């Protein structure tokens, strides 16, 4: 199963993400585009999720049909779930659930943050929430494949 790291250089924090059994083709495309960098944001409606709204897929375009992928509602997903939203062509959104969510929209799950890194993930989530609502610090997130 493929693995990748999410790293926030300004925060000096990173988490390991392990591929899951669902949507491996989607994960392959995501990983084939790494290393890739995006502006880190936060979900503002559905609950405690990190949300990168513009992940560039410039090497391998995303061309899977919706019917080829399994969906999951974030409210039902485990803490640490990494999912895609609107993946198409050269762009996708990427969300990571770090605490409770009520979000009952469909997402495309591709990976899971390692159990040992869940506390780090929560710290990043809280700092990003502070950024969104108060400090406006800009955090970039980097995704890189791990062999």
């Amino acid at each position, binding site marked *: 199963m493929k693995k990748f790291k999410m790293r926030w250089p300004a925060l000096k924090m990173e988490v390991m993400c392990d591929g899951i059994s669902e949507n491996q083709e989607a994960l392959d495309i995501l990983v084939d585009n790494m290393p890739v960098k995006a502006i880190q944001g936060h979900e503002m409606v559905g609950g405690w999720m990190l949300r990168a*709204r513009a992940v*560039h897929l410039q090497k391998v*375009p995303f061309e899977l049909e919706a019917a080829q992928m399994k969906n999951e509602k974030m409210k039902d997903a485990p803490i640490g779930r990494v999912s895609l939203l609107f993946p*198409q*062509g050269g762009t996708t959104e990427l969300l990571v659930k770090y605490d409770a969510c009520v979000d009952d929209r469909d997402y495309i799950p591709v990976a899971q943050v390692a159990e040992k890194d869940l506390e780090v993930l929560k710290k990043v989530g809280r700092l990003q929430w502070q950024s969104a609502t108060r400090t406006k610090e800009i955090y*970039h997130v980097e995704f890189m494949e791990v062999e």
Partner: protein
Amino acid sequence: MDWKTVKKTIDEENARILKTPPEDVLRVFKYEILETEGGTGGLMLGPWFEGATASRYVGPYYVYNIVKLAGLPGYTAQQVKEMTFQLLPKAVGTAKLCGMATYAELAQKVLDCMKDLDTKEDMLKLLNALYLYGSNMNAWIHHYMKWGIGQAFRIPTREELVDMGTRNVESFV
């Protein structure tokens, strides 16, 4: 303008604004400057709300869905063109009125080019560039949106609502 030139311009902008906040977003959402004379009664909340929504509709909602459907064999180039002209202009117009000048200009150039394109392949290349641009704008707008205002409008709990209901009569004393 040649569509490849427009695509190249958008691609270059996409690379630039990954690191640097777009001027449209800084001007409107950070510095609260609106050069269109929009903002009824001199209030910025309207352009923020409408501008953010329209910007999200152009890229992550409309163009995403057009590109997604265009990838299916049953959709013809003419249908892709019609969907684009049906969906985009009003959202682009709203984004422009709300100060998203560069975004609107690039989207309008895409629309102008689409008139002369004949193949789905070329249309998809151009639309995909705009989709990424719209997603970048969406990301930066979400960053600079002054979400802290929301602290003044916290969603009340059920207990607070019941309490408000029982004390309602006091406001008429």
